[in-house]
């Protein structure tokens, strides 16, 4: 009797791992940890688990800046995960060139990604030497300013509709004890905000000349001088926002302690989690209300090469799943980002997302700096911007001169 039950227990023990092996586990690393982001990534996990595989969540807290070194060292160090998030563009360029990433071209051709991904430039960012190496999952645009209705009501001024009105309203906000412009202290936030201002204020031609053609003369020119002057003003507005993370800064806007924040559309997820309604509690102005254009950066998933064929199979399933209509809708609604395919129905989208979709449909799009500049150049710009935004010691002219030097040496 005793022996039999022991044997049964043993048998159960042995069969368990075998049952587990049928559901292929894929570890997916990403840096989506704020409230809205976590809710969105759960949609991916749910859909992937429904296919009989298992999503092992490998969230890395912090931000992309913390997470990317960990991901890259795992891939180059021979401990690759099943799939990993990167931003569209050049962040994983060298990993692809070194042959560490799975080639998705076959799957892409079978499912006709080139026809369904809109704008198709997203897919181009995934393409190296004619082969496709990543799945774009969403479009994030930086070009937004988020305004708190409560803050402007308290200050007794109408909610601005463009950057100039915002500048004019800033003193009133200050008098009412508000921070006019909320901005976290992480480097990418100040350099991102600067980029948004340069698209809006210097105009598209100047921006393209600097960021795509790396024309140092344009960077030193009068168009950009305007941007640096405006940034010097904005640096006054952001004083007293002693927070680090972007979502803490967004929270200042949500609670009405700050007038506005220049931040990408991922901020929208935070407003949604806080139960705020676009148009009633907060407004969003694409392109700072001046130049209505959005950049089509975003997130993409890369699949490192793995030895186990079953896992490779699961990788392909995940890749195809991420682009499917239902998942695209579910994910992007939670995330507050725009879907990468033009043929899905986003009836549930709110005001701000609809504005974004319209601009996207109208074709007013720009590549993201992640697509045009190397991480090295971006790092140098970030260093300059952190220094510039945090201290009055460096004047707008000096900053512009150094900016032009970085652009001159950009690769």
């Amino acid at each position: 009797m005793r022996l039999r039950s022991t044997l049964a227990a043993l048998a159960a023990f042995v069969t368990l791992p075998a049952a587990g092996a049928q559901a292929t586990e894929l570890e997916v690393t990403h840096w989506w940890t704020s409230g809205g982001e976590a809710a969105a990534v759960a949609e991916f996990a749910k859909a992937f688990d429904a296919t009989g595989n298992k999503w092992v969540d490998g969230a890395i807290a912090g931000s992309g800046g913390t997470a990317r070194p960990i991901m890259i060292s795992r891939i180059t160090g021979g401990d690759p995960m099943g799939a990993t998030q990167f931003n569209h563009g050049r962040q994983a360029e060298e990993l692809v060139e070194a042959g560490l990433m799975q080639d998705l071209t076959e799957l892409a051709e079978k499912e006709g990604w080139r026809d369904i991904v809109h704008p198709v430039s997203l897919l181009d960012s995934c393409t190296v030497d004619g082969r496709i190496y990543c799945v774009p999952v969403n479009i994030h645009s930086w070009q937004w300013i988020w305004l708190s209705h409560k803050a402007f009501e308290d200050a007794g001024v109408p909610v601005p509709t463009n950057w100039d009105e915002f500048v004019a309203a800033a003193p009133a906000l200050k008098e009412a004890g508000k921070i006019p412009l909320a901005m976290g202290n992480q480097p990418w936030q100040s350099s991102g905000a600067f980029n948004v201002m340069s698209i809006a204020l210097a105009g598209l031609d100047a921006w393209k000349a600097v960021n795509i053609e790396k024309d140092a003369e344009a960077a030193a020119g009068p168009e950009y001088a305007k941007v640096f002057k405006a940034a010097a003003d904005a640096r006054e507005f952001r004083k007293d926002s002693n927070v680090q993370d972007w979502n803490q800064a967004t929270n200042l806007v949500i609670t009405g302690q700050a007038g506005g924040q220049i931040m990408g559309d991922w901020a929208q997820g935070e407003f949604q989690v806080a139960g705020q309604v676009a148009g009633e509690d907060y407004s969003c102005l694409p392109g700072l209300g001046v130049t209505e254009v959005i950049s089509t950066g975003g997130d993409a998933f890369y699949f490192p090469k793995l030895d186990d064929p079953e896992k490779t199979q699961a990788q392909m399933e995940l890749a195809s799943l991420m682009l499917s209509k239902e998942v695209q809708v579910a994910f992007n609604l939670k995330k507050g980002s725009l879907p990468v395919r033009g043929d899905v129905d986003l009836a549930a989208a709110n005001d701000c997302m609809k504005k974004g979709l319209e601009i996207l449909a109208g074709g007013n799009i720009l590549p993201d700096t992640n697509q045009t500049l190397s991480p090295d150049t971006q790092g140098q710009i970030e260093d300059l911007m952190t220094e510039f935004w945090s201290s009055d010691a460096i004047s707008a002219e000096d900053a512009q001169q150094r900016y032009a030097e970085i652009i001159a040496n950009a690769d």
Partner: protein
Amino acid sequence: MARDGRPLQLFRNLNAKIAAIPMIFTAVVIFAGGTIWTVVYSFTDSKLLPRLRWVGLDQYDRLWNTSRWIISIENLMIYGVFSLVFSLVIGFVLAALLDQKIRFENTFRTIFLYPFALSFIVTGLVWQWILNPDFGVQSVIRDLGWESFTFDPLYTADIVIYGILIAGLWQGTGLIMCLMLAGLRGIDEDVWKAARVDGIPIWKTYLFIIIPMMRPVFITTLVLIASGIVRVYDLVVAQTSGGPGIASEVPAKYVYDKMFLGQNLAQGFAGSTMMLLTVLIVLIPWAYLEFGGKRRV
């Protein structure tokens, strides 16, 4: 028969030599090899992955034209000098005070040494809160009625490095104190008695008799403090992450950021080579004085 006369020099103490092989291997291959590899690749244009494409001194040129690197070096020098002086002085004074045969010596020693049990990350976070103007020292003193009191080093670019210095000293002096205390205990009681008979004041005894006798202890502490200075990184990351702006950047952080965030290995290597050079500049003259000259007894 000549062979049996003297055993070959190589095989003397064979066991000890075999036992030392792993350590020698580690030292040569990992330390020396890694160092040479790093220096060599700092002359290339390696990005995310190392590659041998020579660019001469370009990386160094860029390094020394980067204001963030210059600020990092300045910060390291300020932090280094003050941390060296204050660690030694405070450590020694605390040890001398503890050595007066006071009551509860064990308790005090534990209290002073305790911060050393915390990692730099924890130390950094603790002091980030203590120095936070809204919650820490400043707000406590303002609540006591001193409304205009201002003390927010972590948010003032000019003095932020001193805010980090305070945390570093709080963490490190306990260990220095313990080493000093051990050194003081090692001094023969008779020296004190002789000094007292001769009527030498206590401070003079410390300064001119005890401290020179404690030379080995001082050298040990010096090495410990110096190595702590060069590698200061986690404290800064936890306390300010380099801010406000880039006012509290340090070289180690620059190297990390360039290598892993900027995906520019060669630039990071150039930075770390400069750090190595700094250490050598300090170390070589010292080693020369210590080992090169006439040996002291």
